[in-house]
């Protein structure tokens, strides 16, 4: 069986700096993989390469057996992979529902102009990530950080992905908000969503993933169950700055 997401021998060089050094991993359907490592290890760069925002120097990226490594970002998303960002990026002058509307849009000018807007779907998505009904017509500036993360998740879900890449979903959240988002991700997992998750909050990350890989200075240093990776000497050393 082909893996849902397969990254092979990924290399990214920025001038003299090797940001990603021969990284390979796979994510099976319904699986959830944690990508951990200290600041500057190159986790977000890997995300950006998978999404095509940064083009890899060499290596391949396959989604459900298809090579997506040379496609533009929007095409990759149409193929069923999407991501959230460390800093949520809502459309500031739009309501919550309009933000989700952009995620739901078909990539066809005629359909944009003549097609019907699916208001029910917009609302259902917003409510499914736990946004309150009274927040739907608010602008993003009126939302808390937790609600902004939910909006970002809803907009990402709107593109109907089969794999979601979550980048620091817990950053800037209160304890209560972390619990909410964590519950949300777990319920999405129960429904069969596949995840690749980056987080510094290892405690919050643990219940969300089956496996983990650790990255340090652009290289994969460990792979296995979350516990195995956390106990790995090289990983401990990298977090302690060794």
């Amino acid at each position, binding site marked *: 069986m082909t893996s849902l997401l397969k990254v092979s021998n990924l290399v990214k060089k920025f001038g003299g700096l090797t940001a990603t050094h021969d990284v390979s991993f796979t994510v099976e359907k319904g699986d959830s993989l944690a990508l951990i490592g200290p600041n500057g290890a190159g986790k977000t760069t890997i995300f950006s390469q998978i*999404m095509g*925002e940064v083009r890899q120097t060499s290596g391949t990226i396959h989604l459900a057996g298809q090579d997506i490594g040379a496609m*533009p*970002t*929007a*095409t990759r*998303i*149409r193929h069923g992979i*999407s*991501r959230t*960002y460390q800093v949520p*990026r*809502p*459309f*500031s*002058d*739009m309501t919550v529902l*309009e933000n989700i*509307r*952009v*995620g739901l*849009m078909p*990539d066809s*000018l005629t359909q*944009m*102009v*003549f*097609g019907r*807007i699916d208001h029910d779907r917009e609302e259902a998505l917003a409510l499914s990530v736990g946004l309150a009904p009274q927040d739907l017509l608010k602008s993003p500036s009126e939302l808390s950080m937790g609600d902004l993360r939910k909006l970002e998740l809803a*907009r990402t879900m*709107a*593109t109907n992905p089969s794999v979601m890449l979550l980048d620091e979903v817990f950053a800037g959240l209160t304890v209560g908000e972390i619990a909410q988002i964590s519950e949300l991700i777990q319920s999405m997992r129960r429904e069969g969503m596949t995840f690749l998750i980056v987080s510094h909050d290892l405690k919050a990350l643990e219940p969300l993933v089956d496996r983990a890989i650790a990255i340090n200075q652009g290289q994969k240093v460990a792979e296995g169950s979350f516990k195995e990776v956390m106990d790995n000497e090289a990983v401990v050393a990298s977090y302690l700055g060794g």
Partner: protein
Amino acid sequence: MNIRWYHLALWAAFIIGMIYLPQLVSKGTLRTIIFANYLAIFAISWDVLSGRTGYVSFGHPFLIGLGAYTTAILTKRFGVPVEISIPAAVLVTMVGGSLLFLPALRVRGSYFALVTLAFMELMYQLVQVIRPDLTGGTRGMSGIQTLTRGAVNGYYLSFGLMASLGFAMWLLMKTRLGTALSAIGMNEEAVRGSGLNTTKLKLAAFMLSAFVAGLGGAFYVHYLGSIAPRALFDINFVFTIIVAAILGGASTIIGPIFGAFFLTFLLEYLRPYLPGAERYFIYGGIALLLYMYEPKGLHHVLQMALSAIKGKSRS
């Protein structure tokens, strides 16, 4: 689509009012309104592109000029009838719009503004040098066929054109296409991150903008009967278009129409006191006031006033 009955009622009231207008005002005022109509068309064109996507064009006279020169040269030099020359002018402008689009793939922000300004300047230089026998060189062209006689007919033609273009663009921008273009203005990366091809969307915006500018430019030159390149490819003209659009309220279509009328009459009434460069102070002053107090323009002020009245009548 988010259209309510009162939107259409307002459009209808506006159009009916404008149809009766020539009976109420003098010929001189009518000529001012004709200019306002064309300025409104250019402001609508600017709004569809720059008001929405945030790609601020300082070179709209490039597009307007393409439309105006194409039809002027075709009719005057080659005796082509306007039924053919005007569509040809629009087509040429849309091709020109795609040309203007190319830098937008690479640069944005103030660099894009500079590149478009360069396009305008380039065209100003070119019409003087390349085939002045066709373009009329520095002196421009006169004796171009006019489509209407008298201020009243000129008014109806310009108003009909402005109202139909305005209404069409307003409808179009009410669809998800308008939402997507606004989204580009707010965060282009996130639009791409929603799986949308932003290049295609931006190209659509440029084409629409060029369509409106080309049509407006072509009809304007057939109203004036002449082209003066120095007045057309002038930074002053650029400012007039941009200030009209943002004064009224960018990315609303209605706003730029308001803005064009407001600005035209403001400048007309102040004309005795403003012999020359002082109008720059007006532009600067308006821009500063808008920036400080009402970045969303007159359109927003009116909306607030309307909802305040509604709120009062309810309580």
